[in-house]
């Protein structure tokens, strides 16, 4: 091509992926236990994730701007790739948080992982039925996070490849149109 077609002219978005940055998964971790918060935060940092930790489901909803109040964080700036929440928490449980997230049009696509110290089958089933990505038994291990991260990154890669392919098709389409119009 003799001319470079600028993206703005073609009305294409500059957002190449939904990742917070090309390499980092941004995880929102929710747990009422201080020990577990410290642990999960470190676990995720070591696994090359950006981490935001909150101590309750209510605070998680506030952070996401889903609590009905005006939040300081705009949706455009907030790129969460994964939510990991404890199941048993005072006030709102992780299960209730999961439901609220899946009810929200803005956040329902974000994978939610439930963590619990109790291996209760009906509980696990209920969470998975409600749309949880995974259910991890506490204490969580490095290997669990790695496995999670790998499967999410793979899903992102597939989504990214699909997006790039779609772009290519669009660009070829526009190019042919311009050629026909003899621009």
């Amino acid at each position, binding site marked *: 091509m003799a001319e470079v077609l600028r993206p703005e002219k073609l009305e294409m978005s500059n957002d190449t992926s939904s990742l917070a940055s090309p390499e980092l998964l941004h995880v929102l971790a929710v747990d009422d*236990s*201080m*020990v*577990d918060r*410290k*642990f999960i935060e*470190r*676990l995720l940092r*070591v696994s090359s994730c950006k981490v935001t930790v909150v101590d309750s489901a209510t605070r998680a909803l506030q952070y996401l701007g889903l609590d009905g109040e005006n939040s300081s964080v705009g949706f455009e700036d907030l790129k969460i790739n994964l939510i990991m929440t404890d199941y*048993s928490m005072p006030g709102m449980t992780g299960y209730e948080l999961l439901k609220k997230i899946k009810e929200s049009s803005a956040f329902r696509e974000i994978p939610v992982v439930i963590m619990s*110290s109790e291996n209760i089958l009906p509980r696990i089933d209920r969470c998975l039925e409600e749309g949880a990505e995974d259910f991890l038994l*506490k*204490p969580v*291990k*490095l290997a669990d996070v790695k496995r999670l991260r790998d499967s999410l990154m793979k899903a992102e890669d597939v989504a990214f490849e699909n997006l790039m392919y779609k772009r290519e098709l669009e660009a070829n389409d526009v190019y042919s149109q311009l050629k026909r119009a003899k621009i």
Partner: protein
Amino acid sequence: MNAGIAQLQMQFRDYTISLYQQGFLDDQFTELKKLQDDGSPDFVAEVLLLFFEDCVKLIGNMARALDKSTGTVDFSQVGASVHQLKGSSSSVGAKRVKGLCVTFKEYCEAQNYEGCVRCLQQVDIEYKTLKTKLQDMFNLEKQIVQAGGVVPQVDID
């Protein structure tokens, strides 16, 4: 090689292994160590500090909930604190404390007052014992580093 450092390292290795063998620690403690590096050299100590603070707070809650002088004992309240302690002890690899919490929880569910009081006393002793043991372990690490040595990786099989 400095004989002093080698000796300290051996002491450290033996002591650490003994803590696992005697059931004070389990493989979750090993997981904690995996998360420590030069960038976060005090991570394990920091988490354990939070854990011991948790112990003090939760055991206090349990004692208050088991206090008959304030009225009837609310076993579900005791159980809630036991559940939390079980969780955090599990997260740091405090095996004996966790085991006691399992028993304690059963007594709560059975509303067995004497059993609960016994468990309360035992869990108090147990976390304090662990605290002392870990302080000794951290001291050995410190001595190795101060002598110019490197803290060895201890493989538990």
